[in-house]
C-alpha cells in the first residue's frame, strides 16, 4: 500500500525506514542463535578467556562427536543421540496420537447422531480451558501410581489429554460439504469407508498443518518431561538443557562448546520444519486458534 500519489523522495525515505526496522528486528531474533553457533565452534579455553566473538573456530566436528556420542550426566547414560531419539519419539508420538484421537472424536461428534453427543462434546471441550501446568502435581501422582514414570506412555499420553486437535478437526469437518455424505451413501459407502477414503484424504492439508504445530509443541515440552523422566536415558534434548547449565555452574572448566552445540541441536529440527513448511504452519496456527 505504498502511496503512489506521494512525491518520490518521501516514499524512498519511508521504505528505507521500513527496511531498517525490519533488519533490526531480524537481528534481534537471529544474533543470540548465531552466538550459540559461534560458541560451539571454538575451544572451551577461548570461551572462558574472552567469551563470544566473531571468530569461527574449527572445533565444530570435535564438539559434535562429544555432544552426540560421549556419555554425560551422573549415570553416564545420556548421549546426544539418545536424547535426540527421545525428542523425536516425544514429538512424533505426541503429534500422531493427538491427530488420530482428535480426528476420530471429531468424526464421531460431527457425523453421527448420538444421544450423549452434547455431554461428550462438553466433556472434551472443557479440557481446552485448563493447561497441564495448573494440574501438574496431581497428574504426576496419578502417572506415578499407574507405574508410568520413566516410560514413553507416561511422557506422551497425559500431554494428549486435551482437545485442541479435536476442536480443530471439528471446525474443519463442519466446513466439508454435506452432499459428500449423501453421495457416498448412494454409492454404498459405509461410515468407515467414507472416513478413510473420503474424509481423511480431504483433510490432508489440515493434518499436515496440525502435525507441524503439534510436533513442535511436543518436542519443546519441558515441565512435564522434567517431572516424569528421572532416569537419564529417558531425557529429551529440551529436558537436558537444565542439566547442561548445572554442569556449567559446577565445574572449573565447563564444556561450553559441547553444551552450546547440544542447545543448537535441540533447536534445529523444529526450526527447520517451521521454516520449510511455513505456509501450512501459518495457516494451521492462525486458523486453529479462532
Amino acid at each position: 500500500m505504498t502511496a503512489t500519489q506521494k512525491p518520490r523522495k518521501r516514499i524512498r525515505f519511508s521504505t528505507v525506514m521500513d527496511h531498517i526496522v525490519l533488519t533490526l528486528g531480524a537481528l534481534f531474533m537471529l544474533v543470540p542463535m548465531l552466538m550459540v553457533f559461534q560458541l560451539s565452534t571454538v575451544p572451551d579455553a577461548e570461551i572462558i578467556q574472552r567469551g563470544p566473538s566473531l571468530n569461527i573456530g574449527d572445533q565444530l566436528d570435535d564438539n559434535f562427536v562429544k555432544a552426540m556420542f560421549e556419555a554425560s550426566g551422573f549415570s553416564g547414560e545420556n548421549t546426544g543421540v539418545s536424547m535426540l531419539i527421545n525428542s523425536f519419539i516425544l514429538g512424533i508420538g505426541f503429534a500422531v496420537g493427538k491427530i488420530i484421537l482428535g480426528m476420530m472424536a471429531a468424526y464421531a461428534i460431527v457425523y453421527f447422531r448420538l444421544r450423549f453427543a452434547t455431554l461428550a462434546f462438553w466433556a472434551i471441550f472443557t479440557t481446552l480451558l485448563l493447561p497441564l501446568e495448573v494440574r501438574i502435581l496431581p497428574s504426576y501422582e496419578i502417572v506415578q501410581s499407574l507405574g508410568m514414570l520413566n516410560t514413553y506412555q507416561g511422557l506422551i499420553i497425559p500431554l494428549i489429554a486435551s482437545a485442541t486437535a479435536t476442536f480443530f478437526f471439528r471446525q474443519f469437518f463442519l466446513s466439508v460439504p454435506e452432499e459428500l455424505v449423501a453421495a457416498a451413501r448412494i454409492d454404498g459407502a459405509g461410515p468407515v469407508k467414507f472416513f478413510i477414503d473420503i474424509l481423511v484424504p480431504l483433510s490432508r492439508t489440515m493434518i499436515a498443518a496440525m502435525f507441524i504445530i503439534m510436533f513442535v509443541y511436543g518436542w519443546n515440552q519441558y515441565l512435564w518431561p522434567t517431572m516424569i523422566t528421572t532416569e537419564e536415558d529417558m531425557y529429551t534434548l529440551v529436558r537436558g538443557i537444565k542439566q547442561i547449565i548445572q554442569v556449567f555452574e559446577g565445574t572449573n572448566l565447563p564444556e561450553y562448546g559441547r553444551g552450546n552445540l547440544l542447545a543448537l541441536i535441540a533447536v534445529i529440527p523444529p526450526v527447520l520444519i517451521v521454516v520449510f513448511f511455513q505456509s501450512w504452519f501459518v495457516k494451521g496456527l492462525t486458523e486453529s486458534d479462532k
Partner: protein
Amino acid sequence: MKRALFSNIWLPVALLLPQLVIIAVFFYWPAGYAVQSSFYLQDPFGFGSTFVGTGNYESLFRNNEYLKIANFTLWFTVIVTFFSLAIALILAVKADRVIRGAKTYRTLLMWVYAVAPPVAGFIAVIMFNQSWGPLTEFFALFGYRFQVGVNFNDTAFAMILTSIWKQVPVNFIFFLSGLQSIPRSVREAALIDNRSASGRFWTVTFPLLAPTGFFLLIINITYALFDTFGIVDTVVKGEPGNNPMTLVYKVYVDGFRGNDLGGSSAQSVVLMALVLALTFVQFRLVERRIHYT
C-alpha cells in the same frame, strides 16, 4: 450441524472412547484430585492427611512470600505482554508494507517460534554470563555491574527480555495474517481519505486489527503465566533462592520439591480459577469480535 448423518450406534462410541478415557484419567481425575487435596493437610512423611477446610487457602493469602510472587507475576505478565505485542505489531506493519525481501523478513522474524523456552533461557544464561557475557559487558560500558541470579531486578530483567524474545514471533504471525486479511478496497479507500500514513494506521488499520489484538492479549497472558516456566527455571538455574519466580514455578517448587501437596494444590486451584476467568473474558471478546468482521 450436519443433516446427512450416519445412524450407526456403536461406531461413534468406539471412536470417542479413546479420547474420553484419556481425558477422564489424565484430565478430570487430576483436576478433581487437585481440588480435593487443596482441602487437606498432607503429612510430610506420607502417613495420611487431615481435613483442614479452607485452611490451605487462608495460609496462602496470609503468606507474604506468596503475595510477593503473585505481585511479581502480575508485573512480569503486564510487561512481557505489552512489549511482545508492541514490537510484533511494529514489525508486522513494516513487513506488510515492504515488497522487496518480504518473504525473507517473514522467515527471519518467525523462526524463533520453534525455539523451546528453556533453550531461550539457556541463551540468556550465556548472554548474561558473569565474566564474559556480551550483555553483561554491554551494561558494564555504563558502569553497571549486571548480576543475573544474584540481584533480584537483574534476574527479572533477563527473564522478561528472554520471554519477550520468545513471544514476538507468535504475535508477529497473527498480526501479519490479520493485516493481510484487510481487503484491498478498504486500504485504497483509506488512502484517498487520509494522506498521512500514521493517520491511516490509527484510524483504519489499528481498529481493524483490534479483534486480533484482543485475542492475542489472552494468548500472551496465558503464555506469560504458564509457558515461561522453562525460561524461569533455566534463568534461575533451578535454584529459586531469593530470585524472582512466577506462580506456576511456585506450584512446582512447593509441590514437587517441598512435598507440600495441600498448599501446592490450593495454588493450582487458584491458577485454575484465574485461567477460567481469562477464558470467560476471551469468550466475551470472541463474541464481540464477530461484530467487527
